[in-house]
Each structure stands twice: as C-alpha cells, then as structure tokens.
C-alpha cells in the first residue's frame, strides 16, 4: 500500500468531515468565546450576604457618620450615614477612599524593629510581646536615670480617650512633653482663652447665617467639617445667602461664593479690621457683646482708616465700605477665618480680628452666629498619682517651650520641636512617640524636621501606614485602622454642639496590629508601679465603656451622642490680641521678589493620612501630571520669567528648592505663586510616593509674636526657567 498524495488528501478530508460531525469545533468555539469574555485572571468579587455597618470616620477631624457596605466579611463600600447630624448621607472623597487605607499595600502589617540604617526601610517582624518589651525597657531605663522628661509624644489630636491615654501615659511616666500637631485649633483655643477668658473653642452656626464673610476659609475645600460645609454651601445657594470670599487666590470656595474679594496675601486681618473700623465709625455695631471698645476705638480708627487699609490689602475703598455695610446690615452675619482647611495654627491677630468682627456684628451666641463653647469633658479619670521620678520630670520645662515665658498661654508648639531638637532646646530628646501624626511630611521645613528626627536616638511610630515618620522610626507598633477599632471621636470642627461619634470595628483586624489604647495599657502594666496603677483597665474597650458611662448605650445604638444645649464659655468678647504686627512672609523682597502660598483642596488630604489612589486619580493634571507638581503662576509673572504653560521651572525659597511645572492661572495675582499642600510624599506606595512637591520643604515656620504658633501663610520665592 502506497500512501500517495491522493490518499493523504482523502485522509484529511475524512478527518475534516469527521471533525465537523463531532462536537470538537463547536464546543471549542463556545468555550473560547466564554474564555475571552471572562478572562479567568480578571478578579471577580465573591458573592455573599450584604450588610451595612455604621461607624464614624476618623480620617479628618470632621466626624462624619459612615455606613460601610459589606459582602460577607469584606467591606466593599463606604457611604455617608443617612440621618447623621453632621453629614446626613453625604461623604467626601477621602471618606469614600477609606477602604484603600484598610486593604491597601501601605499598611504596617506587624510590629517591627529596624535592622538597617534609619530610612533604609529594613525591618524585622517581631511579636507584640517583644515590641512591648523593647519599648518598656527603654522607657524604664531612662526614667530610672531621672530623665523622664527627655521622652516626648506627638499626636494628631488631644481629645478623646486614646489621646488622653497618651497624655496620661506621659504624666505617669513623668514627661511634660505631649504635643499635638499644629492646626487652626491652636489659634482658635488661644483666641477663645484670650478674648473670652476661658478654655474652649468656637462653633459657627453656618446653617442659620444669612451673610457669610469668609477670610480665606476653604468652605468647599475642606474647612471645618468638610461634608457639613458642602451641605451648608448648598443650603446658602438655595436660600440665596450672600457669601463673600476674601482670598488672594481664586479657590473653589472663591469660585462658588457670591463675591470673591481678592486681597493681598497675608492682609486678611487688616481687611477685617478695616471693615470693623468702618462699622465703628458709622456706628453700625452692636456693643452688647464687646468689652474694651472705648479704649480700642481710637487705635482702630487711627490704624485702620479705609484708605490705609485699601492700600495694605489691595481692596478698593468702596469695596471695604460695601462689605462693612453688607455685613453689619445683614440679619445674621457671620465671619469665618482659618485659611484653607486651617492646617496651620495662624496668628492670634488674624483670628482675633475676625472674632472681634463677629462680636461687633452682635452675633455672639446668637442664631447664625459664633459660639465660644467648652470642649466636651466626659473623660473623668482619677488623677495620676505621680512618684518622685515623675514629679521631677514634670517640673522640667517643655521641650517646645509652650506654657511658659512668652508662650505662657500656648498649649503646644510642635512646630518648634525641630528647632529644639536641633540644638535650641533646653535638653536633648531621647525618645519620641508618634501617634496619628506624620511630622516628617506635615511639619513646615521638612528637612529640618528630618534632621531633628535623625538626632533623636529612639523613635516609636504607632502609625498604621508606612509613612515618612514611620520610615524614620526604630520601632513600629502599628495601630488598627479606624475600620478595625473602637474609639470615641469627639468632634470640634466648628460645630455649635458638643458631639461624640463612635468608631467601631466594621471588619476584624486584617493584620497583626493592635489598638493604640491597648498598646499603652499593656506597656504601662508591663512597666509596673506606679505606671500600672494609672492604667487600671483590663483592656481598652473596658476603659472606653467606663469612660463613656451613660453615653455608651446611646453611642452603641445611634453611633453619635449630641449635646445641643451648652452654656457658652463667655458672652462678651474682650477686644484684645490685635495690636501685634502682622506676620510677614519669610525672605528678603529683593532676593525673593515673588510670594509662594500653599493652598488646600478637598482632593488632597493634607493630614497625616496619605492620599488614597482614588483621590490622586481625581487631581487635575494642572496640579500634578505624572510625577510633576505644578505651581500656579499669573501669566504676566510667567511671561516676565520667560515661562509658558507646562514649562519646567526651578522654584526657590529661603528654605529650599524644587523643580515644578508652570500652570498659568488668571485667578492669582501677578507676583504670587500657589502650590497644593499634601503632595510630595516619599513614603507610602507607588500611587503616592514621588508625586508632586511637598510644600512644607519650601516653607518654614514663622512664629506668631503673641503665641509662638506657626503663623506662616506663605514665603518669599523666585521662579526661574529650569
């Protein structure tokens, strides 16, 4: 039998016929189409039971209620909680992105100790017992030498049980050095103390005001409790409330306002006092809520005559008169202050001028007005019994200088920490504990801060994330993220009520992390008496439940506890704090002819929480493009420097230098530059690290002469072709 070509062809034809009559081609066709429509490697979320669990967001100080949608045990979406007194179903972009904090790759997954050089990122996983042992041995050793005061702690907040446990830990240990990261709260508390004579904070009844005069406050850019402010802004639109935004730059808040009043940078207080002077001179004021007007009046009228103010602020004299008339003539006028999100403390003069304006308009403790109210004081623990070592430590001056000498009224001065550690402090620091704070990114003059951190022999980070400060630490004791833990969340953020939210675990801890409260209690117990005695609770949950007492049940049921009727801490404003000189931007005008201003946006976090990938995706490519950050420049200024849209430029300030791209923007004055705050991370993941420039590397702190707070609102700069 010879297999020739014909036979072969016959075989093939037979094979083809047989194949066509078999299921093979038809089934393969079907399967390959199913395969190509549903690639097996495409992730498909597993199905399961859908439930919602309510909690409180702690990613910013806003205190919004959240409802987390879960499928079985996975959290899949965060929504605003319906009916919540702050946000009633609304949520901001940061709150929405919270799951990326929970499941993202930047979590610190276990306690770790540094094994390489500082900043190399070489860590060794250790057990919690070992981590507690390392910490407590170090602390006991220092304390036994009578150097307890050389241990400091820096935290993002000082209210609520967890910050209170840190403060208690420091007190029992014997260190006066508990610091809160700087924010507008610092100046607000100081102003309430100075102007009303009592400890407290301000609340603003924005919903009921009918004329808003905002001195740079980012109403839709994240000021106060952001979602509450969005809602207020919508409400104002519906009610046709006049909103005047006084700001050097056309921010989103300025764009949404009824009227934008561009003002020379740093002269907002001058304008406020100029408006006050017009109101006083024309007798358009309510004297019922102010003290000391008679002696203040002549200074005010002399120093803030309209023409003079017009020259300082760049606002036309008739506009000043119009603003005064509009503000004083409104039924329920309200002035707001704190630039952007009020991320820096600011000067007492800036804030006192605006509060005085409110008092002169007669809105103190009125509907739609400003309310100086006490902070919630539900944490009633018995006093710490300090031993000799602790008392000796506590009698030492604070390393940041707050609370003594010329800063007697100031509680915290974290912005002075770097300077103190770098050689200007009363003593060197041996240990720094960092909780809910990222000073190596968020404090001004970041290089100096990092230099200072490099000098501190032992740094402990309680951060849940591999942030810039954790990178400088020696020991990582990661806290749960907010979706994994119980915590009381006292909300200040300009609310007129006292409100406490409850954060509760929505999912079980994803990694080998531990609640910071738990870590502190177990560390104190491990240190023996008298530390252990100050922490009598078995665990944090017991501590929380006992502390909240009768509020606990309400919080478990409603997620929030509200006290609406509060006695204000004062009803007359003592006119004071406004005679200091205006804080000037650092730098020589001749060498640095331009002014650089930081600006805040709701799309960037600016706090210790790094931006989630979701957020970065929403930032316009005129803010960051690829890894390049932009600086906003007036076309006239850009032309003079020979720069066009998108050009690379070198931005230099007395504190640093950065390569940036130019964004031509008509909404900023010639000679002024603006750059977004919150970028330029070096830590975190590829979604965030290396994106844009950290403006804190270009700006240094400028001390407010009245308080020592960082009052820098910008810095002198130059911009040249790269």
């Amino acid at each position, binding site marked *: 039998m010879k297999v020739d070509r*014909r036979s072969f062809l016959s*075989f093939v034809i*037979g094979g*083809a016929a047989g*194949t066509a009559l078999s*299921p093979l081609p038809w089934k393969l066709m079907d399967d*390959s189409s199913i395969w190509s429509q549903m690639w097996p490697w495409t992730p*498909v979320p597993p199905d399961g*039971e859908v439930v919602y669990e309510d909690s409180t967001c702690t990613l910013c100080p806003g205190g919004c209620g959240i409802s987390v949608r879960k499928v079985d045990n996975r959290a899949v979406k965060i929504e605003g909680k319906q009916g919540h007194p702050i946000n009633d179903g609304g949520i901001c972009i940061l709150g929405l992105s919270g799951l990326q904090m929970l499941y993202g790759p930047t979590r610190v997954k276990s306690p770790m100790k540094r094994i390489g050089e500082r900043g190399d990122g070489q860590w060794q996983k250790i057990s919690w017992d070992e981590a507690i042992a390392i910490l407590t041995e170090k602390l006991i050793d220092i304390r036994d030498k009578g150097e307890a005061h050389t241990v400091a702690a820096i935290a993002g907040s000082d209210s609520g049980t967890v910050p209170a446990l840190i403060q208690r830990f420091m007190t029992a240990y014997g260190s006066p050095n508990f610091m809160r990261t700087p924010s507008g709260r610092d100046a607000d508390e100081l102003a309430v103390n100075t102007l009303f004579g009592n400890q407290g904070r301000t609340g603003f009844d924005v919903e009921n005001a009918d004329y808003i005069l905002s001195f740079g406050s980012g109403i839709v850019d994240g000021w106060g409790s952001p979602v509450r402010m969005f809602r207020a802004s919508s409400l104002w639109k519906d009610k046709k409330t006049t909103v005047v935004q006084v700001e050097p730059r056309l921010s989103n808040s300025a764009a949404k306002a009824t009227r934008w009043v561009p003002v020379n940078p740093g002269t907002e207080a001058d304008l406020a006092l100029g408006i006050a002077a017009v109101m006083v001179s024309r007798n358009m004021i309510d004297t019922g809520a102010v003290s000391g007007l008679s002696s203040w009046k002549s200074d005010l009228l002399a120093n803030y005559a309209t023409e003079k103010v017009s020259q300082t602020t760049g606002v036309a004299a008739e506009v000043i008169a119009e603003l005064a008339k509009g503000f004083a003539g409104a039924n329920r006028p309200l002035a707001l202050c704190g630039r952007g999100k009020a991320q820096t403390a600011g000067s007492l003069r800036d804030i006192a001028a605006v509060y005085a304006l409110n008092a002169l308009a007669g809105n103190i403790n009125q509907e739609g007005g400003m309310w100086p109210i006490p902070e919630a004081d539900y944490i009633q623990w018995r006093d710490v019994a300090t031993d000799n070592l602790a008392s000796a430590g506590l009698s030492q001056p604070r390393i940041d200088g707050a609370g003594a000498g010329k800063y007697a009224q100031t509680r915290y001065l974290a912005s002075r920490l770097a300077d103190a550690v770098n050689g200007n402090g009363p003593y060197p620091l041996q240990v720094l504990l960092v909780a809910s704070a990222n000073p190596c990114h968020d404090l001004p003059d970041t290089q100096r801060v990092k230099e200072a951190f490099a000098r501190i022999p032992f740094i402990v980070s309680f951060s849940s994330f591999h942030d810039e400060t954790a990178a400088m630490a020696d020991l990582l004791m990661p806290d749960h993220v907010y979706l994994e833990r119980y915590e009381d969340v006292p909300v200040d953020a300009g609310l007129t009520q006292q409100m406490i939210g409850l954060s509760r675990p929505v999912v079980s801890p994803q990694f080998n992390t531990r609640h910071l409260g738990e870590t502190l209690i177990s560390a104190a117990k491990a240190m023996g008496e008298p530390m252990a005695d100050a922490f009598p609770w078995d665990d944090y949950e017991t501590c929380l439940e006992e502390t909240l007492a009768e509020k606990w049940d309400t919080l478990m049921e409603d997620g929030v506890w509200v006290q609406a009727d509060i006695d204000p801490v004062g009803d007359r404003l003592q006119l004071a704090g406004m005679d200091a000189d205006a804080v000037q931007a650092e730098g020589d005008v001749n060498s640095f002819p331009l002014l650089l201003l930081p600006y805040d946006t709701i799309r960037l976090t600016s706090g210790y929480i790094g931006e989630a990938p979701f957020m970065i995706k929403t930032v316009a490519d005129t803010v960051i493009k690829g890894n390049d950050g932009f600086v906003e420049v007036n076309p006239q200024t850009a032309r003079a420097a020979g720069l066009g849209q998108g050009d690379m430029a070198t931005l230099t300030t007395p504190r640093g230098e950065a390569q940036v791209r130019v964004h031509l923007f008509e909404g900023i004055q010639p000679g002024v530059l603006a750059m977004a705050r919150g970028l330029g991370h070096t830590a975190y993941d590829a979604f965030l690290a290396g994106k844009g420039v950290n403006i804190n590397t270009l700006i240094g702190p400028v001390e407010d002469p009245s308080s020592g707070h960082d009052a820098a609102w910008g810095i002198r700069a130059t911009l040249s072709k790269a």
Partner: protein
Amino acid sequence: MSTLDEKAKEGMDDHATHGSDGKQSGAGGFIILFFIIGFAASMVLGWVIFPKLLYSQKQQPFSFNHALHVEEVDDGCESCHFFREDGSFSGTPKLAQCTECHEEPMGDTEDEAIFVEQYVTMEREVPWLSYSRQPDCVFFSHAAHVIGAKMDCVVCHGHIGESEESRPYEYNRITTYSRDIWGHNIAGFAKNSWDRMKMDDCARCHKEAGVIHTSSVQTERDACFVCHK
C-alpha cells in the same frame, strides 16, 4: 518554456501512463479507506478523547449526603438554601449555618469527622465547589425564578436533593466553569430540563413563558440585559 514547465509536463505524462495501466480502481479503494480512517479518527478524537482532555475533575472537600439532610429538615431545600431578608439567595450554606447543628460530630462517618476536625473546630469555611455557578457575565436572580415564577428547584438543579454523596466536580479547562453548565453530554443534548444550563436553555423557557418575557420591543422577547448586566 522554462525548465519548471518542462518538468511539470513530464509529470503529467507519467500520470497518464499509470492510469492507462489499469491500477485506478485499487487506488480508489485506498482513497476511500483513508477517508474512512480520517473520518473515524477524528470522530473518536471529537467524541471520546476531546471531552476527556477538555474536562478535569476535582473532589469536593468531603462528601455531602443531601438525602439524609432533607429528611432531617422541615422546609426542604429552603431549610439550608434560603432567601435572605433582602431577597438575595444564600446559595451554598456558610459554616455558621452548619454549626447550628454540627457543633459536635453528628454520626460517625469519615466525612463528618473531616468536617468537624478541619472546618468546624478550625472555624474555616468549607470551600465547596459549586456545580451550577453561571459565568460572571450572567446575572441570575433566584428570587425571580423561585418566588416570582414559582419554579421548583428540580427544574434547573435536578434531583441533587436525593443524592447520597457528592459526585466529583468537573470543570472546563478553558473556561474554568463547571461542566454542568454545558451539560454532561458533549454534544449538548439534554433529556431533562436540568441536564444543561446554557443560555439556550434559559431562552427556551423564557420563550415558552413568552407573555411576560418581552422586554425587547424589537424582538418581542427578553432583551440581552435581562441576564447580561
């Protein structure tokens, strides 16, 4: 004329010579034989070898006796495969449901021991392999069919409730989906309504109950998006 053309001509001449030798009928027989061989081989490949290559098998974590459980419960299939309050279907029971009865071993079978030791005490979910999971592009609502159309579970799932042990889970190597979707018959023939779960099978039933299934104005049948979201 080129050299190639000449060669070709020679070849044709050769062919003509062979033909005149009278061997053509024998060659024709070979041709048919080869046709048959090719045909038979491809039929064997397509009908016998191909299914074996296409499908792979996995065993369930342990064998489950449906018949035994159905006898014990009051509410038939819905005792374990129930609808949640929001109308969604619970599907394969979670460990929490099983442990309502199985906190301790019930009975002394090997499978029971595996279940209690490896899953109940370890608090691990049993990784059951679902025979009737539709591809991800399909949106299937049990509520619409069982509660809405009052269909019996058997219509699609057959008599699985009477099974005494778990059969092996067969899955398609290309698509990774269960063999039950295409059906056990490789040609796609079905005797019973539960033999296949392909789109055609859905469409057949939807067409029969045509009155309410006319979401597409053009075709007066159900539109694609009824099942493909």
